[in-house]
């Protein structure tokens, strides 16, 4: 229980540090933000905008104000202009986040579904044609940057073959078929590299596990290979994979940023990008906070899963 409390405390600290870091970074954005927001405002207007944005205060008190709001569920509004009511940031997040999360979920789910058996089997048949072929292919696929792969898919499957729509996102409520069609290429793009990484990672851990004495011991007990692979070897081999999967969230968000840009999908990536361009301080901070929370929560879950998979961790 103290362990759980400690993890939650850790979670809060990380979110605070990350968002504070974001606050400092955004305040470093050069150029007068007021000028960017309202290029033709009078000096009086500017002063008012400054005040409304809290720009007359220092970074720290601005951060404290923001954090107070954020943790009570109010992410604030975007700044639309002097005296105008901006859009609710929370509403934007509610609109965009599910789209990004849906894509990321599909990617992770399908990746594991494919990568697990692939990794296990190529470790078992180490050095076989299947293994070496898989190795070579994984190598090539990892070297294919997301944006190149996305462009290729869009060009080939979208423009040439016209199988999938080249842009936009259809919600699952607006037709399942269209939904899947709209996410097919983004998901494929992000999946390919992940499958390659995950299956190779699992393969190499599996290979070293298979050389352990306890695998020999299981063999000496007369346990069939299939059972040795899945019941004895997989669990201790999957720990690195799990860690990497947790750490991968950052990379996935980066990937989502690119995929959303190329396939013109309104996700959280697009929101952040627009916010950076428009110097929407509060919005940037809130988006970063959302991502940080996601990252920390997912890593928290990964840690829980870790301790389920490896009893040695539980007692430490």
């Amino acid at each position, binding site marked *: 229980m103290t362990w759980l409390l400690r993890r939650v405390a850790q979670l809060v600290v*990380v979110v605070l*540090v*990350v968002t504070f*870091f974001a606050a400092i*970074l*955004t305040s*470093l*954005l*050069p*150029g007068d933000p007021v000028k*960017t927001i309202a290029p033709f405002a009078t000096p009086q207007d500017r002063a008012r905008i400054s005040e409304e944005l809290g720009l007359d205060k220092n970074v720290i008190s601005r951060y404290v104000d923001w954090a107070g709001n954020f943790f009570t569920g109010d992410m604030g509004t975007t700044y639309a202009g002097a005296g105008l009511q901006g859009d609710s940031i929370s509403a934007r997040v509610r609109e965009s986040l599910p789209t990004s999360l849906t894509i990321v979920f599909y990617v992770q789910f399908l990746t594991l579904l494919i990568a697990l058996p692939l990794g296990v089997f190529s470790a078992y048949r180490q050095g076989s044609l299947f293994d070496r072929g898989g190795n070579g292919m994984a*190598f*090539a696929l*990892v*070297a*294919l*940057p*997301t*944006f*190149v792969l996305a*462009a*290729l898919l*869009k*060009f080939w499957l979208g*423009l040439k073959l016209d199988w999938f729509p080249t842009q936009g996102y259809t919600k699952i409520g607006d037709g399942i078929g269209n939904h899947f069609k709209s996410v097919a290429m983004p998901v494929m793009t992000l999946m390919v590299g992940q499958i390659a990484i995950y299956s190779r990672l699992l393969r190499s851990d599996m290979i070293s596990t298979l050389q352990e004495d306890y695998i020999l011991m299981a063999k000496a007990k007369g346990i069939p290979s299939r059972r040795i692979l899945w019941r004895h070897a997989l669990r201790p081999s999957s720990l690195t994979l799990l860690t990497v999967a947790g*750490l991968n*969230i*950052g*990379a*996935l*968000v*980066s990937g989502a*940023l*690119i995929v959303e*840009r*190329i396939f013109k999908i309104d996700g959280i990536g697009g929101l*952040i*990008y627009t916010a*950076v*361009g428009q110097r929407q301080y509060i919005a*940037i901070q809130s988006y*970063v906070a959302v*991502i*940080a929370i996601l*990252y*920390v929560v997912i890593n928290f879950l990964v840690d829980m899963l870790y301790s389920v998979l490896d009893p040695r961790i539980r007692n430490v």
Partner: protein
Amino acid sequence: MSEVAPMTEASPEPTQEEEEATKRGLGIAAWLAIGWLGCMVFLAVSASFLPLDDPINGSIRETPGVSYFTEGHIFGNDLLGRDTLARVVVGTSTSLSIAALSIGFGTLIGGFVGLVAGYVGGRIGTALSAMFDILLAFPPLLLALTLVSVLSPVTETDPPSRIKRMLVVALAVGLVSIPILARITRANALSWSQREFVMAAKSQGAKPFRIMLREVLPNVVPAMLSVALLGLASVIIVEGGLALFGLSINPPDPSWGNMVASQVDDLGETPHVWIVPSVFIFLSVMSLNLLGDVVRDKFAVREAAI
């Protein structure tokens, strides 16, 4: 002293031939990778001396948008009549310079911080590694995007020069790579620092700096080198990502990423314009990844042979 048995036994040390065999044993793939990267470096260095068309300004005498293997344009040209070959070669020098600068910067800082964190350990080590972890929580592309726009805003009326912009991109990406390199170096330094030879050096009276430099660092270098090679590959990729958001070097200056990005909303029009740089990116990234693996494997074998 006559009791000491003479060391006559056949020692398992590699002979001259065997050592050469390990060098030869790189494999065809690795040599191809070295060859490709050699070509790239050559192109990058000699870009301004080669007899190429103007990569920035198209000529009105050309037919715009011709495809591969048109006379005078082996890779065709774009809708502004600019030769793709010329642009991709100049792009090579941009992309590789950014990659080399940022990883050089990242390795230097990240390596140093990681080495100290790994060797000194304790609270300092824990604090430093917690910091890396937090930095890693940021999506790298997002961080790079933010840093570039911080360091060199696009909104200024007169755009920064190509060189300045390149330095900014390299610095931003280098900053992003620091936590990754530091983390790997720290992990390696930590495990080597627990070896008994480090304690032996301490018991000889060596100062911490000497131990870090002479005992720990040489053992960590192969891992750092391997990560740096992989890092070069990922910088090439990140540059492309930045370009997609208009935050790599400013068009019309070419980089590999810029060339792909400029066409991304119009893939069908002149596909060769984005496919050619894509192939360059792909082959370079694959070569770097391969060499990174080779370095790591060689290192692992040496370790295992002990």
